[in-house]
């Protein structure tokens, strides 16, 4: 029985969900004001007007929820894309949506829109993500081979990166440039329920698009032709994964900045735990992505570098060594 649960990945999934709860609780505890478990519990379930309740409900809760949504999106779509492309190097960035969302945000900062509304940056970033997805669909719609999709994604990504450089180039105020760079390094600081209501629906829609793709990804382990003759509708599968990634990661980047590495590393960490079957990786990758995102967010609250530590930096600094370790450990089976 236990072996079967282990094989199905349920044991892992249940454990990861437990860890999510624990880390979420930690995320409610640590910050400029440290609270203990009882205080967090009282803040969540008790009267809403105590100072603790305000800190937890208004400041930390949206942050925790966003970290979960964002991390899960990056982890899940990373695992799905690696399965679709049958390439362990794929990450959600390959379809160009992260760079395009960043371009939207940078333009918003350049035009000074952020001063008008706190939602200006995420809305513009989301617009950037949409435009890139539309271009991608246009470029790749007629014969959406995987190679076409990736090349189109790389092209869009390069173009967006070049445009970001161009905008920075034209920005005369160094403070504004710094603001742009800091945004792109990612953060969940000062995020509110407004950010959550803006990004949440798109993130959930992306997840729904990717629901149930596991069987097709498993069949793709045998190559495209074999998958097709096993009854998998490849075109549909490709679009579900690409559109799901575009929606969920586009919305994620719009509110958190371009946090790299989660989508690339998390599926590898899960493989080290339960093997390579693409379907089995999806859910644990979402859970582990959420956990890492919350942990990284907690670390950004530490008084290091005058509170300027950014989410994307923490993630990469932790993620890269872990990634190297996994590569080192699994180099036999990668052969």
């Amino acid at each position, binding site marked *: 029985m236990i072996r079967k649960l282990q094989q*199905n990945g349920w044991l892992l999934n249940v454990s990861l969900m437990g860890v999510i709860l624990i880390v979420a609780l930690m995320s409610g505890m640590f910050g400029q004001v440290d609270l203990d478990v009882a205080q967090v519990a009282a803040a969540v379930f008790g009267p809403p007007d105590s100072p603790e309740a305000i800190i937890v409900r208004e400041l930390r809760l949206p942050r925790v929820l966003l970290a979960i949504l964002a991390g899960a999106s990056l982890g899940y779509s990373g695992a799905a894309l690696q399965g679709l492309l049958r390439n362990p190097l794929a990450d959600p960035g390959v379809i160009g949506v992260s760079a395009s969302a960043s371009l939207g945000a940078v333009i918003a900062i350049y035009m000074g829109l952020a001063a008008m509304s706190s939602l200006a940056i995420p809305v513009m970033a989301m617009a950037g993500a949409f435009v890139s997805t539309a271009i991608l669909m246009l470029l790749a719609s007629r014969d959406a081979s995987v190679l076409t999709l990736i090349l189109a994604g790389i092209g869009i990504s390069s173009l967006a990166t070049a445009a970001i450089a161009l905008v920075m180039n034209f920005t005369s105020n160094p403070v504004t440039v710094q603001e742009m760079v800091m945004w792109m390094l990612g953060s969940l600081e000062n995020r509110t329920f407004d950010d959550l209501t803006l990004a949440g629906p798109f993130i959930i829609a992306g997840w729904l698009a990717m629901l*149930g793709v596991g*069987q097709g990804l498993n069949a793709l*382990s*045998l190559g495209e*032709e*074999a998958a097709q*003759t*096993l*009854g998998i509708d490849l075109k549909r599968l490709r679009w579900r994964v690409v559109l799901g990634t575009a929606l969920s990661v586009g919305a994620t980047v719009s509110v958190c900045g371009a946090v790299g590495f989660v989508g690339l590393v998390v599926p590898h960490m899960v493989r080290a735990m339960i093997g390579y079957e693409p379907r089995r990786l999806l859910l644990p990758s979402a859970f582990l992505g959420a956990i890492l995102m919350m942990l990284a967010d907690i670390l950004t609250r530490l008084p290091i570098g005058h509170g300027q530590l950014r989410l994307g930096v923490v993630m990469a600094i932790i993620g890269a060594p872990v990634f190297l370790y996994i590569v080192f450990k699994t180099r036999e089976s990668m052969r």
Partner: protein
Amino acid sequence: MNGLEIQNLAVTLGGNAILRDVSFTVEPGQVVGLIGANGAGKSTALKAVLGIVEPEAGDIRIGDQDVAALAPRERAKKLSYVPQGAPVHWPLTVERLVGLGRTPHLTPWQEVREEDQAVIRSVMEETDCWHLRNRLATTLSGGERSRVLLARTMAVGAPFMLADEPTASLDPLHQLQVMDIMRGQAACGAGVLLVLHDLSFALRYCDRLVLLHEGGVLASGTPADVLTDAHLETAFKVKVARWSEGGEQFLAPHVAGG
């Protein structure tokens, strides 16, 4: 049980006519060999039957059922396929890999069921790879791998099995094993359609042959009818030496005029 009928199949790829007016039938219990020179359209014919390549014209039927009109999953239950040089992209265990053959019988949410497990075990025993079940598929030798991929295809349990050069890149013993498995499938009532390059195998293992030449059928019928000197010279530009030993016929090509 009805045969797999291909009628007037035509395929054009990238503006080039690859196949035209190709017709043949695979009856249950038969091994049919599709032979022809490189570029004659053998693999394309298989792919058109499977729906991987869209035919320009022609009918593909099983009995009175139009195969092209079937939903992908239903078609997959009728026709199984061993692609040429089939890749394995992830180090899955052999048992999980063979289990992928059950995909058409499962909903997107379903895991392999008890009854699937029984099928998986029986095809793995039949192909002598049950002892490999916990190995990673990426660590197998060429011969083991081809047996595992055959087991994966057999696990579909389709009435018709199509294979694109299943003996390619195998040593002689493993080639013979694969051909014996194919015969075994036919003996169990499946219709087997193989793309073959080895004319000796075509002669010895197939009930019927279809010889493709420049996108059309040059000859079809029993191996004796198809593998004539004249046909082989036209299709392959080779002559053949023939002999028999122990009641079995053999055939080896050599260069025409040589």
